[in-house]
């Protein structure tokens, strides 16, 4: 009966109820978006790091991966050391450098990584084939379009440009064998990959001739066997190889958290504001509705309807508005998040796989659950107020009115 009365009461003022539901839906959508935003980049980054199963990254001591041009010397020795640990299953050294396509009227520059195709975790092949020899190169879509080349074309690739002598430290003719999508790369950055030994071979042999790349790596990606403790392996690596900083997913996430803390706080504040606005909206509307029905409620009480019945009915009204708004807000929030994500993901320099808004069911349900709880809270005050009205006084006022 209480539910039926609450439903009938909401239907009685259709327009007002619809507007209230819409208002709550907007607050819910904003709350959901802020929750998605607060944790989205973090979780998206985590998923990105874990996407190829490498739990550890080794960067030059004191740096983050590709944060500087610094390289780690003694790749072979490091690999030999790492292989002594049975918990490590795969090691993928990555060498980064700037490359230039020269000759044939092409003037295209970009970043390149030297990898071992058998264990690489940096890209996915889009078309053509993967690197088979040191004469092969693959590029991303952005660079491919800049080059205007075709698969099978032979390109002259140079490395280590010296502006004083206007020479390169090394050049090599490579065959374009495929296009790839770099997992950690941005959409709008030209990128290429070739075998690490090919890239090494293009580096200079001394300080005067540019960067020395022989037996060096910018980064190692390390895959730990299933069941092994990545954190233990990380500690072992740092103890065994003093020239590297071993970064686990947890460490990387902590660093991302630190960098995004203001961003996250802002999202949480805006989310809290949305929640509060939703709460105030429902409280206001239910209070207005109760004030309008003061006489009706007094009569209900006079004919023997209990105080708890009145409270329950009004709380149900508040909850119904909130639940309907939350359900609508869920859809609205997902649509707006998708739209905003498209805009934000187009920011230059961001990895393609990074999402700003990531739908995490638990966080979403928690946020919407919080909204529903606030809806119950929003209904309690006006409900208690209505049920506590002195009956005779309310009837007298109603008669005078």
């Amino acid at each position: 009966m209480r539910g039926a009365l609450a439903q009938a009461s909401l239907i009685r003022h259709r327009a007002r109820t619809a507007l209230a539901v819409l208002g709550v839906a907007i607050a819910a959508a904003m709350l959901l978006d802020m929750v998605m935003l607060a944790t989205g980049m973090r979780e998206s980054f985590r998923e990105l790091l874990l996407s190829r199963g490498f739990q550890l990254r080794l960067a030059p001591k004191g740096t983050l991966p590709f944060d500087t041009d610094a390289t780690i010397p003694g790749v072979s020795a490091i690999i030999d050391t790492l292989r002594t640990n049975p918990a490590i299953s795969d090691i993928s050294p990555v060498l980064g450098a700037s490359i230039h396509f020269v000759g044939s009227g092409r003037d295209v520059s970009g970043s390149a990584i030297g990898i071992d195709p058998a264990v690489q975790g940096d890209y996915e092949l889009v078309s053509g084939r993967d690197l088979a020899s040191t004469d092969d190169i693959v590029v991303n879509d952005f660079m491919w379009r800049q080059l205007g080349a075709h698969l099978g074309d032979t390109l002259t690739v140079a490395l280590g440009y010296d502006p004083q002598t206007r020479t390169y430290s090394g050049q090599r003719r490579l065959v374009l064998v495929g296009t790839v999508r770099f997992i950690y790369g941005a959409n709008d950055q030209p990128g290429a990959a070739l075998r690490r030994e090919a890239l090494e071979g293009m580096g200079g042999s001394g300080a005067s001739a540019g960067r020395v790349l022989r037996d060096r790596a910018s980064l190692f990606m390390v895959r730990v066997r299933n069941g092994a403790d990545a954190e233990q392996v990380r500690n072992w690596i740092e103890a065994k190889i003093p020239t590297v900083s071993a970064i686990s997913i947890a460490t990387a996430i902590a660093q991302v958290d630190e960098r995004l803390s203001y961003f996250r706080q802002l999202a949480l504040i805006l989310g809290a504001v949305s929640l509060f606005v939703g709460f105030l909206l429902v409280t206001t509307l239910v209070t207005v509705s109760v004030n309008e029905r003061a006489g009706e409620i007094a009569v209900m009480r006079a004919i023997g309807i209990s105080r708890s019945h009145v409270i329950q009915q009004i709380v149900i009204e508040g909850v119904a508005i909130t639940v309907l708004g939350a359900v609508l807000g869920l859809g609205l929030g997902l649509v707006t998040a998708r739209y905003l994500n498209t805009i934000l993901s187009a920011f230059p320099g961001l990895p393609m796989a990074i999402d700003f808004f990531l739908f995490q069911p638990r966080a979403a349900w928690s946020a919407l659950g919080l909204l529903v709880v606030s809806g119950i809270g929003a209904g309690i005050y006006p409900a208690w107020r209505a049920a506590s009205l002195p009956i005779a006084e309310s009837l007298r006022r109603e008669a005078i009115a």
Partner: protein
Amino acid sequence: MTSVGRDADGTIVSVRDVHRDYPVGAERVHALQGVNLDVARGDYVAIVGPSGCGKSTLLNLIGAIDHPTSGTVTIGGRHVESMSDREATQFRLRNIGFVFQRFYLLPILSAVENVALPMAEAGVQKQDRRRRAAELLEYVGLGGRLRHRPSELSGGEQQRVAIARALANRPSLLLADEPTGELDARTGTEIIRLFQRLNEDGATLVVVTHDEDLASAARRKIHMRDGRVVDA
């Protein structure tokens, strides 16, 4: 319609030296000043008097929706002034039927649902309350209007629905505050006849009214002035 007056014997309402004061700003208004009144079971009492003389205040006290400042109000042997809110609510639900000047039907419910509402609160099974609500609406002459909403009924019809609602839980006392106040003369006459029929069927009625016709239809008329009963 015999259930209302099924035990119509002796005194049902006993009001003794009742005072009711209201704070109005810094002052106190003495709405009732030492009122004494007895109503026997099966009686039909009209309380009349000028506006502001305390008629409705007295009716509210008899109906257990207000407490006296001093004095005692006994309904069917139970002291109203000492009841908690919960007790008073239950007491009203099962023993008092209220009819108001403005009908106060819930606009969102049909006639039959409005009548069934107090029965639902009293825990009557859905089928039973529907059947009884339909019987009551038949009794007040609205057998063909069960599904109509208040907005689809005339003022007189709405008041008859309100009377049926007041009778829903077979109350021992029916109270009406200006029940014809919002009705035209013809419709008012229909309500007066309905009250007479109710009383003939055994209901105990206390009516507050300015309507001379309604007051004249009662068995007993009580005059009030300045918060006192001046002629019982």
